[in-house]
């Protein structure tokens, strides 16, 4: 297993955002994480990246066989975690190229990656300053492609992206998760958080998790689950879960 999260409970400013959450991702696997707004999807990404505001109360995170529960962000990134954040900050005074230069092998890689994401004309602009939501998503994937993580955490890469650029984003994520984008020639793994599931049309995923109130309430093959959610909405999912819970209770 590449990533193994066991019974994780996390608080932010005293409020519980993840409750006893367990999830695992194998080598080369890509999984989808769906759930309504506020269900804790982004909290999971921040927790995995070691944001100090997210306090782990119990449980563990094992990555590449090492317990990284108490690792700093720097250590986690060194080990191979990378993220495309849902709401990345604006950074005045630092251009895309400035940061890309720290991550890329050479200028040619910066240029070709920017071109893949239609970002060539953005390279000398300050990061996210005056960018649209969709442009920021592309910027995040651009940096991830240069970073080449073993596990890419993508938080809502498809929200706010217009139809023309959805293909671009889909293709870029496809590249990110293909073995050609890893120096060790090992196929990277992915955790893709999505609200609407659009991205599942562009990226092959192994399974989908549904999240509600900081916990995983269901998982299964992406095809069935995404279709069901899109058709019936998350309420249906939640009801199904509640029904299963009550059945279980009756059974007990």
């Amino acid at each position, binding site marked *: 297993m590449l990533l193994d999260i066991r019974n994780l409970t996390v608080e932010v400013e005293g409020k519980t955002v993840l409750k006893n959450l367990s999830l695992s991702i194998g080598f080369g696997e890509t999984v989808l994480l769906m759930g309504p707004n506020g269900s804790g999807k982004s909290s999971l990404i921040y927790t995995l990246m070691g944001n100090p505001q997210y306090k782990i109360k119990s449980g563990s995170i094992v990555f590449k066989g090492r317990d990284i529960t108490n690792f700093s962000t720097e250590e986690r990134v060194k080990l191979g975690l990378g993220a495309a954040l849902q709401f990345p900050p604006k950074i005045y*005074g630092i251009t895309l190229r*400035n940061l890309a230069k720290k991550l890329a092998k050479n200028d040619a890689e910066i240029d070709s990656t920017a071109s893949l994401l239609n970002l060539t004309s953005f390279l000398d602009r300050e990061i996210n300053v005056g960018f649209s939501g969709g442009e920021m998503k592309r910027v995040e994937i651009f940096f991830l492609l240069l970073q080449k993580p073993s596990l890419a955490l993508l938080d809502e890469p498809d929200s706010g992206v217009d139809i023309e650029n959805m293909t671009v984003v889909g293709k870029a994520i496809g590249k990110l998760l293909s073995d050609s984008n890893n120096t060790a020639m090992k196929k990277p793994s992915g955790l893709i958080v999505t609200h609407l599931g659009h991205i599942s049309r562009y990226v092959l995923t192994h399974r989908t998790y549904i999240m509600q109130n900081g916990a995983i309430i269901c998982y299964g093959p992406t095809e069935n689950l995404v279709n069901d959610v899109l058709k019936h909405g998350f309420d249906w999912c939640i009801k199904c879960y509640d029904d299963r819970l009550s059945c279980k209770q009756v059974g007990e």
Partner: protein
Amino acid sequence: MNMGEKIEFLNNRAKMSLQNRCPYGPDVDVSSYIKSENSFKEVEDIGLLPENVVERIKSVGIDLGGSIKSSSYLQIDHSLVYKRKLYPNVEILSLDEALNDKYFVENYFWNLIDVGQDKFTAAAQLYGKGGYVIISKENSITESPVQACLFIKGTEVFQAPHNIVVAEPNSVLHVVTGCAAMPETVGLHAGITEFYVKKNSTVTFTMIHDWSRAAHVRPRTAVVVEDGGTFINNYINLNVSGLNSLQSYPIVYLKGENSRTFMSSIIVGRSNSYIDLGSAVKATGKNSSAEIISRAVSTDSSKIVSRARISSEASGVKGHIECRGLILNDGSGIWTVPELDSIVKDVELTHEAAVGKLSEELIFYLLTKGIERDEAVSMLVRGFLEVRVPSLPTLIEKQIKILMESSTKFL
């Protein structure tokens, strides 16, 4: 008042003002600095200067003998050491040469700054020596910047050159000055600089300062901008070598209709430096506009007061002040003092000021991208100090970039 009478008047007023304290910044006993004598002679070739002096001058972005083709002026302590005129449209004189001209004295010598303003202006008139005079000819554009360097090498030197820059109508002039001192030099610098930006002219003035830990710096600068003229002021003091104290509050008089100014200052406070730096604009020309931008970073136990003032007395004036301060550690401090005032209603004056620490959100973001913490902090500080100054020639922009890269590494 004829020329002789004017000089006599200036000297008398200066004598009466030698005890006038400046309302800003710590007081300095001027008398202990005014004893030293000249120590340098003018050289024909810059190669004749001591190597350590040339290197130190390069550290403030001035390359006198090198690849950059530009007109130059170098003053060490009190003496004019080197002067080179390369372009026919830009005149470079020493102040002493210019003072032989009656018209010059009457029109440009102490016409913008009151010699009795404080003890520093007074001492500059009475004991100051040297200074450059740069005049761009009417209807001329000179892209290559004039380089001027004021350097303190001796000990307990009072260096107070009087510089005068005149841009005749419809001319474009770029001036870069590097001011520095040899390490550990005890000195007081109180340069006087007057700018006359005439009709439809543009002057950019870039100053790169790096003094020594024991230096006190009190420059006095004033600028007048006529109809359609533009004055761009770009002050950079990354304070790599530290300084004891710096106080300066240059003022731009936007006298002409549609005149404009952009004043930026970038300051880093290190060790126990005390820095009180401002930019003031008085707009009396209709539809004139002013923008003042400052970035201050305090480290160690340095203190920075960042002042900005725009006063309007004419309709259609637009002005904006942006003061931002970044405090890198407890024990250092930043005070911002933005002021706006107007006595007419048809104006648009705004300001924004912010003081605080580096955002943890931004640091976290860069960490997630694989940047190490120290480097993330240094990138963010460097980004914070980035100000886009309009109208600068690319040569100056490049020089500043190199300087910023090398001087902010350890922040």
